[in-house]
């Protein structure tokens, strides 16, 4: 069965955790022991309803404060599909955790509190969804029960988001608008009786219809080498398997390949997976490849078909989402991790800060602070073989690591 990965987004208290709990409840995915725990805790707290956010807010601090701090991954399935939903935090301080949850998602549900409409965090999350190029985005206008299920309110919010979307660079996105009440269950799994005016599908119905697909929908061949397998046994004396996961395209025995960045050429001699040999290996597969010639290949190198070379360069331009309390400034040095490859990177230019409400950019700022998104230029200590993020998500993204703290401080999307 195929798996659909979904992330939630939206401002604090807009009802993300409640919605996921509601989905689990209405699809009967909560086991008896988990449901009992939620019932008991809700009673203890004196609620007259079931607090579904308890199903996913797994940390003590989260339950104390009634907010989500870190992303939770929730697994459930319906007869037709398996789902992984990332319940992400809405609080601005934890935007980095929202990015963590959203980065691997194919679809996203952006919740908006119908009473408050589009707020600052909605802009930011919607922008990040676009930056990540998430294909299917559902705008779930929540808490409709608190605005008398008003069609007018719903349409106003819809209009505002459509306007934002019209200004986004990414045009491949499918937007769907659904009015719902996560708490009461309207239009989540079951169709609401309170909104006759809404003719569309329920949220679950919509999600069930989405086709799971590879987030790296690319055709060019990319095989980054993670490690070299050398058994050092008599039987496999000369064996040198280049182990890695295919980031794009299909590789076949006999293909003429180039080893990057050196551009040395060779041919694929064998493709192995465990104790079997194969003729062809598909994108996403973790395999081992051996080459005809005794060429020099080590971790971080990349095999590609000779005619399908990516950019090989010692500098790059990217949009970066900053995730650390220490601001990013021009001339600072970081480690860069590009896939499985490491190098050092120096910020040669901080070009602009991008306003997440799509209203433009601020040119030549002095720093990029926590949760800001900006355009930068990097100089690298060695050449990397990369693609634009729009061409290959895996080979077009990177992280920056602060050498002082070893923390992951930013995620970059190559132009």
């Amino acid at each position, binding site marked *: 069965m195929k*798996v659909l990965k979904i992330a939630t987004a939206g401002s604090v208290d807009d009802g993300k955790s409640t919605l996921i709990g509601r989905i689990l409840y209405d699809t009967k995915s909560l*086991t*008896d*022991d*988990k449901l009992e725990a939620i019932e008991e805790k809700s009673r203890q707290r004196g609620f007259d309803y079931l607090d579904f956010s308890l199903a*996913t807010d*797994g*940390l*003590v*601090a989260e*339950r104390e404060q009634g907010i989500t*701090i*870190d*992303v*939770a*991954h*929730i*697994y459930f399935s319906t007869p037709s599909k398996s789902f*992984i939903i990332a319940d992400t935090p809405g609080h601005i301080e934890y935007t*980095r955790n929202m*990015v*963590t949850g959203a980065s*691997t998602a194919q679809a996203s549900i952006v919740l908006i509190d119908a009473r408050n409409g589009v707020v600052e965090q909605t802009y930011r999350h919607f922008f990040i969804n676009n930056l990540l190029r998430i294909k299917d985005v559902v705008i779930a206008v929540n808490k409709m029960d608190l605005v008398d299920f008003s069609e007018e309110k719903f349409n106003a919010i819809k209009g505002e988001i459509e306007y934002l979307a019209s200004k986004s660079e990414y045009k491949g996105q499918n937007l769907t608008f659904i009015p719902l009440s996560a708490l009461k269950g309207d239009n989540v799994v079951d169709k609401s009786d309170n909104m006759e005016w809404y003719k569309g599908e329920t949220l679950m119905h919509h999600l069930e219809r989405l086709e799971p697909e590879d987030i790296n929908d690319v055709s060019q061949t990319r095989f980054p080498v*993670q*490690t070299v*397998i*050398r*058994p*050092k*046994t008599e*039987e*496999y004396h000369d*064996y040198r398997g280049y*182990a890695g*996961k295919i980031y794009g395209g299909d590789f076949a025995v006999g293909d003429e390949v180039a080893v990057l960045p050196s551009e040395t050429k060779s041919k694929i001699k064998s*493709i192995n*997976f*465990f104790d*079997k040999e*194969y*003729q*062809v290996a*598909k994108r*996403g597969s*973790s*395999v*081992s490849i051996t080459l005809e010639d005794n060429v020099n290949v080590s971790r971080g190198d990349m095999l590609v078909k000779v005619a399908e070379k990516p950019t090989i360069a010692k500098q790059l331009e990217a949009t970066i989402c900053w995730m650390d309390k220490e601001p990013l400034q021009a001339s600072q040095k970081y*480690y860069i*991790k590009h896939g*499985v490859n490491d190098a050092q990177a120096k910020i040669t230019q901080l070009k602009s800060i991008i306003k997440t409400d799509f209203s433009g950019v601020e040119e030549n700022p002095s720093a990029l602070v926590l949760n800001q998104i900006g355009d930068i230029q990097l100089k690298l200590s060695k050449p990397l073989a990369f693609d634009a993020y729009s061409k290959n*998500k*895996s080979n077009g*993204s*990177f*992280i920056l*690591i602060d050498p002082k703290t*070893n*923390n*992951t401080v930013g*995620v970059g999307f190559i132009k």
Partner: protein
Amino acid sequence: MSQNTIQVDALESEAIFIFREVVAQFEKPVLLFSGGKDSITLVRLAQKAFYPAKIPFPLLHIDTGHNFPETIEFRDRLAKELGVELIVRNVQDNIDSGRVKEETGRYASRNMLQTETLLDAIEEFGFDACIGGARRDEEKARAKERIFSVRDDFGQWDEKNQRPEVFDMLNGKIDLGQNVRVFPISNWTELDVWSYIEQENIEIPSIYFAHKRKIFVRDGMIWSADDDVVFRDEEEEVVERMVRFRTVGDMSCTAAVLSDAVDIVKVVEEIRDSSISERGARIDDKRSEAAMEKRKQQGYF
């Protein structure tokens, strides 16, 4: 030689990718081996990740002294077959030397004591990455865990301050004294693990399958009465039933379930239809709502 095209299943491919990252990024990794189905699955994945080379790190078992005998026998045989080094450290040693105190009474368990022994072993061997079989679907604190999860000197999990983990890039850079817990099957569900065991025809200890056992019932849970590890009141009646275990931890905290699933096909069917979660049969989680999170903060697996 086969003419086939290979498309490795996404979960398997992801796990193998993670194993290879561990070996590339760390100097002294170790696989925490409990003898349970999840760690057996890990061993198979590790074997695939580095084939035809041997698994390039040892297995570490923290033995509570309360393990099912089937598990121990299985563990030793597996290590021998694969030719990997097996390190065993005993909780009993820490109890004997007075470093830790054993719990007493009705719900006494050695589960918590494992943490101390694990931290000692990490220090003794200087392990910088400990690979474990935890899954995010197991428990709601575990649902928050990263794939590379950084721990300090005391093994503590700083759950409010985890590193972002985007796409499949894994940041294994750590300071001296820190180590990383690695969870290659984070995104697998219990059913995924069982389906994989079935598909790969992986051998697992016999207690996972339905068998006749002397048991007693307490608080709606089924406990083994075969040995004197689980504390039993005089008035708690012993009966014989067909049962199996869904998780195989320390005997003192692992309850059985009534079951007729005598083989893997039936087990997979049973899991698919189950209305109780896997850890619903673990008394260590029932102690309090935050039981798992607290244990993790202290350096538990």
